[in-house]
């Protein structure tokens, strides 16, 4: 028995080809799955950075932002991560409190993030607005606020993500809270009949929407750009809500225990550069954090105006989270 499992382990080791001969220093960047996937920015970022750093950039992935933070917290001070890329501002308060991150010491220029930036530990690399995406050919009467959505006929169905297991889900929770404060439970009650179901993550929800299960899905204002640019399909659109849209700002930070702190700094600088930023729109399908020289790619709708942007500070988001979740659960469990 033991011999068999040892053999299995050995086989797996050879299979995964774990260790490549490494004369160059290895920069470990932890990120979420879709960033490092073949269709995400990962491969191009790796190539571009390796061209200038004389190092080997290695991605390590976790499911999404929250799983990423949990993973880093599990590893603690023993972590071999240099940079953690892919948390968002709903997580940074917890991340800061963990004491695992070091100050980046960078003052970003030409920042295109609405509301400015002054977090000493984390730097934004992209951002977007949560929004309900619909199919123009299927949905004729589009709601333009949570109240309109609540008032729509019950046959209008949305699919949302669970805040406990997904980043957009948590975003929606805080969106309603930021827009309606104490009235949030009321809004949730109004939305309840329209919520077809709640999924574990974005992929399930978006997949169900594309298969025609629901009329609208919680995603991003930039989602239609994907269909337009990559699939030449202009049927998808994001419903713009009068209350404004909650922002997701995705950030990266340097680990206090980074084995290669200088390389990590170099990577963060590279992250704010035109080269990295210009990859973002059509690989991560979000807005770049820095204004691009040539502007956004054709097909990308201009972001809605900054005065429509809703966001809680990391501290406020962390403080509001648990109560908002309880409200959400009780409103939707009736």
């Amino acid at each position: 028995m033991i011999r068999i499992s040892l053999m299995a382990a050995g086989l797996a080791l050879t299979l995964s080809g774990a260790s490549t001969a490494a004369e160059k220093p290895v920069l470990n960047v932890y990120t979420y799955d879709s960033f490092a996937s073949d269709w995400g920015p990962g491969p191009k970022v790796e190539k571009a950075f390796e061209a200038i750093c004389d190092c080997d950039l290695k991605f390590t992935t976790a499911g999404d932002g929250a799983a990423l933070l949990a993973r880093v917290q599990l590893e603690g001070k023993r972590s071999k991560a240099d940079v953690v890329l892919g948390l968002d501002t709903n997580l940074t308060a917890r991340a800061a409190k963990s004491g695992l991150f070091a100050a980046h010491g960078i003052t970003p220029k030409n920042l295109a993030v609405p509301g400015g930036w002054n977090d000493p530990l984390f730097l934004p690399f992209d951002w977007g607005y949560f929004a309900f995406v619909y199919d123009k050919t299927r949905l004729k009467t589009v709601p333009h606020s949570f109240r309109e959505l609540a008032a729509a006929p019950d046959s209008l169905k949305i699919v949302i993500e669970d805040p406990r297991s997904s980043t957009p889900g948590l975003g929606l929770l805080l969106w309603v809270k930021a827009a309606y404060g104490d009235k949030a439970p009321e809004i949730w009650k109004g939305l309840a009949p329209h919520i077809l179901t709640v999924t574990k993550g974005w992929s399930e929800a978006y997949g169900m929407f594309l298969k025609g299960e629901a009329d609208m899905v919680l995603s991003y204002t930039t989602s239609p750009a994907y269909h337009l640019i990559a699939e030449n399909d202009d049927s998808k659109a994001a419903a713009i809500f009068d209350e404004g849209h909650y922002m997701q700002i995705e950030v990266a930070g340097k680990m206090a225990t980074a084995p290669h702190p200088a390389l990590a700094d170099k990577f963060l600088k590279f992250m704010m550069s035109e080269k990295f930023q210009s990859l973002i729109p059509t690989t991560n399908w979000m807005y770049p954090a820095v204004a691009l020289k040539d502007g956004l790619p054709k097909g990308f709708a201009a972001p809605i105006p900054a005065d429509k942007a809703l966001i809680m500070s990391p501290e406020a988001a962390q403080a509001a989270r648990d109560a908002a979740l309880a409200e959400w659960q009780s409103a939707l469990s009736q």
Partner: protein
Amino acid sequence: MAERAEPVITPALVAGLGAAALVAALSLGTVAVVAWAAVSPMRLGAGDWAAVKFTLSQALVSAALSTALAVPVARALARRQFRGRGLLVTLLGAPFILPVIVAVLGLLAVWGRGGLISAVLVHFGLAPLSIYGFRGVVLAHVFFNLPLATRLLLQGWQRVPGEHFLLAAQLGMSSRDINRVIERPILRAVLPGAFATIFLLCVTSFAVALTLGGGPRATTIELAIYQAFRFDFDMGRAALLALMQFSIGLGAAVLAWRLARDAAQDPGLGRAVRRWDCLHPLSRAGDVAILGAVSLFLLAPLAMVGLRGVMGLGLLDAGVLAALMRSVIVALMSAGLTLALALALGAAVARRRAGRMAPWIESAGHLSLAASPMVIGTGLFILLYPFVDPAAVALAVTALVNAVMSLPFALRALVPAMRHVQSVEGALADSLDMGGWARFRLVTWPVIRPAAGFATGLAAALSMGDLGVVALFADPDAATLPLYLYRLMGSYQMTAASGAALLLVVSSLALFAAFDRWGRATG
């Protein structure tokens, strides 16, 4: 008869104990590790009790329905011989080995708001079907578990000596008489175990329950565990919830054990079962209707997966082949490991004088049924991280955990066969002083080979489709096929993902069928 004194410690017992210890360490031990790593005091939240309640109620209903529906299906399959029966039995097993996300999308393609049935309803001016909620959860769980229940019951039918059906024919028994005299005792013997197994599978369900449950009402314990890790980073709570899941598992196991009457029967001559009680056209029509309905229920979603997948196949690039290769290798390692563990446990349990140790060893093999993959993964991660790069052992860990997760099903198939060998040929082998390898190769293996083939195939297929713990250990450059599929979905590549899903379904089934055939091949 005076019993000859026999040394209590035998190699079989040692191997069995070792295997049991490994399973216990992976399932219970990881809970302890997670609890040990907890910083905050261990306590449950108010929502957790609601989760326990929902988990129990949906699992009870799902398991009851799955097993109840399996009775007429297994009966029809047991008493009808027809062309393509073997293929049907194999295909009916497919939902059980499907990755959750694929199965859910397949189900929705039939039952969903945008599915086939709704399309027909809407065409006739009716409202589309709404399955979300409790019934959706139950529907999905029946879809997953009806095939398993049918297989478990069919095994019961196959254990009936062929003479009994001939005897029944000679005594002029009607279908009702046969039901009372032969079939009901079988059900009595196998139903409680099947029910408990499926109950536990439904207890540990998470994404299915959430997606089809229609909202946070449908929170299961496993989701609460996930939340504790990911949302609250509260490992104490995760460990407590995992313990709660184990206690439910224990309760179910004890109940099943008390209800099951072990109808230890003499093995028959293995004749093909011909039946004279069910020749009436009405009876035949009934069975045809049952098999037809169940095939439609189980195969229509699969067909939709296939239909949608075909369009996506062209969009896949070489990366998918590498992922497929990795998955197949992991599945083969995992299946080999499952077989080794099951044989070790089975040999210890089926010894002639197994003693009081046996039930404990056998239960240990089933521990993983109530285990939380999330807790196993996290526990292993905490243990291994200080020593090795998680990505380097990702595939090995996946193979190991998948092996342990499939072990209960392998044991279900293997242990009865091994007991059978021991009771029938054990004395003869003892008298010839056959021991060790020779005895296994010449006496045990030929008899258990079909069961071993089935168990290995099932383990391989389950491993193929399972995301398992690999997510936590994942090496971005060495994704398995299910992970690759999720990555496609996470990158808007839904059509390509459908293609990958089809590939996954076909390769899982092919692996299962290959092992199953190998088991049944003579020679």
